[in-house]
Each structure stands twice: as structure tokens, then as C-alpha cells.
């Protein structure tokens, strides 16, 4: 087997290679019709520098994710979007390998948890009282998201005082 240090470096390189060409930093993208899940997550993540973006449809959500391909999506499952969500999860590994999807749902759809996990959702929440663990998933994902590597000169430049132009 390869040297673990080499393996880790290769992994980091793979993630840099896949996050390229002007992609934005990872974001937390919430997709729901109302706003209660986003409100709950903002409350859980209050005071932390977590960029949260809200969308109202799976189409616009995936478009936003395309611009931030290492993001974490929190999707509200409804009986209306089950099949579309399953389809999008099926293509996630292929199209957006750095992204992750968590599913939130009314408890009446709690029975879908294991199907959603099997389809590729990293986490499933069936109650607003379970937002704590979901916020933890978000923190871990965004902490692990790759960042573009900066050169020494870029690092010095970015540390100059009094702001840029």
C-alpha cells in the first residue's frame, strides 16, 4: 500500500484538482418552500461564519450548488419532490463529487430516511428538534471543504493592512 502521507497528499491534490476554475468557496444551501429549516439552521449556527443560501426549488438549488460545488445542500423532502430528489442524488457522485446532501422532512415522511440514505443523502432529519446534529454535519463538511492553495506572495499580499482597491 502507498505511504499514508503520500495518500493524504494525493487526496488533497484530488480535491484541489476537482475544485477549480473560479468555483466559489463551499456554502450551505437550504432548499425549502417555507423558511423554517433555514431559520432553524441560522439559529444553530449563529455567530459562526457559515455562508447560508436559500433556494425554493431543486432546480435553482442545484444551479447554486454548481457554482459552489463543494457545498452542503439541505433539502426539504415532500411527497411532490421525492422522485426528483432521488434522481438528483443518483447523479451527485458523478456530477458534483465534493458536494453532500442532507434531507430534512416532516415526521410523516420519516419512513423515507433509509431510502434517502441509501440513495446518497449523508444525513436525514425528521424533526426541527434534530437540527443540532445537522448543524454539526454542516460544520464538519464546510471545515473539510477544499480551499484553493495560495502562493507565498498571495498570502503576504492578502495580509497587507488597510484593505485593497
Amino acid at each position, binding site marked *: *500500500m*502507498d505511504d*499514508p502521507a503520500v*495518500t*493524504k497528499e*494525493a*487526496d488533497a*491534490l*484530488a480535491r484541489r*484538482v*476537482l475544485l*477549480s*476554475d473560479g468555483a466559489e468557496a463551499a456554502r450551505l444551501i437550504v432548499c425549502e418552500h417555507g423558511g423554517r429549516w433555514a431559520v432553524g439552521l441560522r439559529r444553530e449556527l449563529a455567530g459562526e461564519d457559515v455562508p447560508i443560501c436559500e433556494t425554493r426549488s431543486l432546480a435553482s438549488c442545484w444551479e447554486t450548488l454548481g457554482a459552489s460545488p463543494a457545498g452542503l445542500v439541505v433539502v426539504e423532502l*415532500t*411527497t*411532490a419532490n*421525492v*422522485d426528483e430528489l*432521488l434522481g438528483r442524488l443518483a447523479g451527485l*457522485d*458523478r*456530477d458534483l*463529487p465534493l458536494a*453532500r446532501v442532507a434531507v430534512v*422532512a*416532516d*415526521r*410523516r*415522511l*420519516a*419512513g*423515507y430516511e*433509509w*431510502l434517502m*440514505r*441509501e*440513495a*446518497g443523502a*449523508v*444525513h436525514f432529519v425528521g424533526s426541527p428538534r434534530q437540527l443540532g*446534529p445537522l448543524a*454539526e*454535519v454542516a460544520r*464538519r*463538511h464546510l471545515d*473539510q471543504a477544499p480551499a484553493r492553495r495560495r*502562493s*507565498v*506572495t498571495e498570502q*503576504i*499580499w492578502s495580509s*497587507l*493592512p*488597510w*484593505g*485593497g482597491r
Partner: protein
Amino acid sequence: MARQRINATDLAKMLNATSQPVYVLDDEMFVVFYNRACHKWLGPAAAGLLDRQCRYHSAQEVTGPDAVAAGLCPPPEVMECQKVTATVSRSSDEQPVRRRATFVPLGTSAEDLIGIVAILDPVDLDSGTRADLDVETVSPGEEDPAGLHERVRRFHDEAAGRYRVDRLIGDSPAMRRARAQIELAAGSRASVLLVGPPGCGRQHAAAAIHYAAHGKSGGSLIPLDCAALGADAIRSKVRALAGGDVLGEHSARSTLVLSHADQLPADVQGELWVVLFGKRFPLRVIATAEQPLHELAQGGEYRADLAASLATITIELPPLTQRREDLPLLAQLFLEEANSRSAGQHGGFSAEALDLLDAYGWPGNVDELAQAIAAAHRAAAGPQIGAEDLPQRIHLAAAAAKVPPRVEETIVLDEFLGQIERELIGRALRRAKGNKAKAARLLGMTRPRLYRRLVQLGFEKD
């Protein structure tokens, strides 16, 4: 006053007299009664229904009274003593026939629940004879057991085909060995550790083992991402699966996949070992990792007992660079998959494109190859994928390979210092709103010196 006596026969007569189908379950969801109207609705399928247990089934081979009972299964909230309206179904020759049902729990809490009474509407949902029973009037978010069963069945059908062992493509010795090991693992219930770099196909191999063992009629494949989930989330899900209630009798044919098991938080490793291996855990366990867990254990970074228990069988999946002979075959497979998903059709690759693919380092392995081919498919206009259709990074890597790599970043010091000085003076002037005395103070220099530097750097004329 004489005590009122409840006559079971009279009660049955009352229930048989109504045109609404009614059935009764005990606290373990066994059917203990169904009335004449229910028998009429179910038809011949009602034979043998008494004493059947209502459990969700997604397996295709479940037929007869078990399948009938599955269609009558109440939502889980009823077991918590909540009155719920949901849909139930019965199979027909063409498609399931559904009715709305009101489930009335007999009890005041989940602990003293003694049974459930199900009262069905007198008309089918799909008959269209009563507008207020039209499916659109069902509240959004209302659980639909029949819909979930069907979706699970379709999902497993498709997944069983996608994750066949023979779809782990490759004629290289490493892949032939891996396929043989996967088929061996499918024939046992031993825990399996799949080791390999990111993108080499660990998840696919785990699914291949599961579906080779159980086919499409098996249970569920439950992934838990140990890197993404915190200790609490992992702990709660594994405990829920250990209880056996989550998946019911499907547990024995289901598989738990601990992805990135090498990143399992230390504070949950001990409990996980006890739950998964200290007691009888109902699911088969497969783990994936980037390096063998026993190596981490030797370095004191992992519990040795858990490392050993997760790796009864260890299967190593090679990086793509160790199986370059498989590249053309894999590329063609991914191209054909891309063709099947889109209107654009491309037959193959130009020789130059294949050369570039072969020269690239593939740090993301097979997953990265799949993404690159998908991107090339979108970009290509001709019948073949040409070199110009491949992603830029593959071209850059080929170009970089022709020049010696620069080991260290070099800085031309005088030039860089000059740039910094110009930038800082400019920022200080803007911050001071053009006031040179103030700017000089910000920069820690005298005003005359600032004036001299402004002239020397070309900010001002002498």
C-alpha cells in the same frame, strides 16, 4: 344498575353491518379482525389475512397474505397513539388500488397501546367518483406507504443492476483479484474492509457485495459517512439499526456501510465495537478506508479490537495508475453511460485523446475519470471525443510533464518589495484621503521622506 356486558358477537354483527371496511390490529400489528366490507374490498386476497403481521415489504417475492398485510400497514405515528389518516392499498392485476383510512389507536400512550382500529372510506381514491377523495386533496407531506414501498422496490431494482460485480470493469490482475474477493465476500456474512484511495470504487464495491449476496430482493444498503457525521449522529443511527425495529425482518438481508471508517471519531469507537460485534448486530457490516485500519491501530490511532473486527476480510482496490491497461475500457464505459443520459452520441476517442488520458496522473482515480469523460461528452461536437474536448487540467498536466517541475517558489526580492511599498503607500494615501502628513504617520516615516518616495516611485513629479 346492572353491569353492561360487552357481547363480542353483537359487536362483530355491528361492524359487519356497515358498508365501510374496518379491520383491527393488535399491539404487534397482527390482523385480529376484518369485517365483511373489508373482505369484499380485498376480495380473494383476504384469505389467510387473519393473524398476518402488517409490515412494510419492498421485496418483490413477497406475495400472498403477507403482501396484502403490507398494504394495510398503518403509519408509525399510530404506534405512538396518534390518530392518523393515511392511505392503504390492495394489489390488483393492473396497479395498486388505494383508499383513505383513519387509524384509531386504542390506548393513551405508546406503552399502553393495545390495538389499532382502521376505518376505510367507502370509495377508492383512484375511482374518481368523489371529488373530495381526489389524490390532490391529500395533504402535502402525508406519508403514503404504498408510494414508499414502490419507490424502494424500484430503487433496489435499478441499484442491483448498476452494482453488479461484472460492472467493476477491468482486466488488470489487480481488478481480477478484487472481483474474485468481492464474490467470495458476497458468499459470507463476514465483515469486510475495502481499502483504497479516494475515487477508486470503494462504495461501488460495497454495493456490489451487498447486491451479489442478496439480489434486488435483499434489504437496504445503509451508508454512514464517518467523516461527515459527528459522533452523536453515528452513535444514534447505529443504535437504531441495532434495535432491529428500523428495518424489521429485512435487517438480516441489509448491510451497514461505514464509509471513511478510518476517520471514525475516537470517542465512539469503543461503543461501536460493543454494538456491532459485542452483541448480535442484525446487519452485515462493510467498512471503507483509505488505509488498512490495523496500521492505524499499530500507531495508536485506532482501537485494535474494532480494527480487527471490521476487517475479517480485507479487499484492496488499486488506484487507477496501477491499472492503466483498464483505462481505455473504463473510458469507453463512461462514454456510453454519458451517451445513454443525453441526446448527444459519441462513438469513441481519438488517438490523441487516449494518449492524453493515459498520460494524466488521475489523482481522483476512477471517479475523476468518469467526471472527465462526462465533461468531454458535453464539450464534444463531433462523432468522437477529441483531445480538445478533454478538460483543461488534463492538457495542463501533459504540458507540465514536459518541463522539470519547480521544486520551490522563487521570489525576486527587490521587485516584490518594490511592489509592496507601492501598494502600501497607495493604501495609506487613500486611507488618509490624500493627506500626505497623515499618510506619513500611518507609514511611520517623516513627511519629507514620503515626498521623496512618491517622486521616486512615480506617484508625483519632482
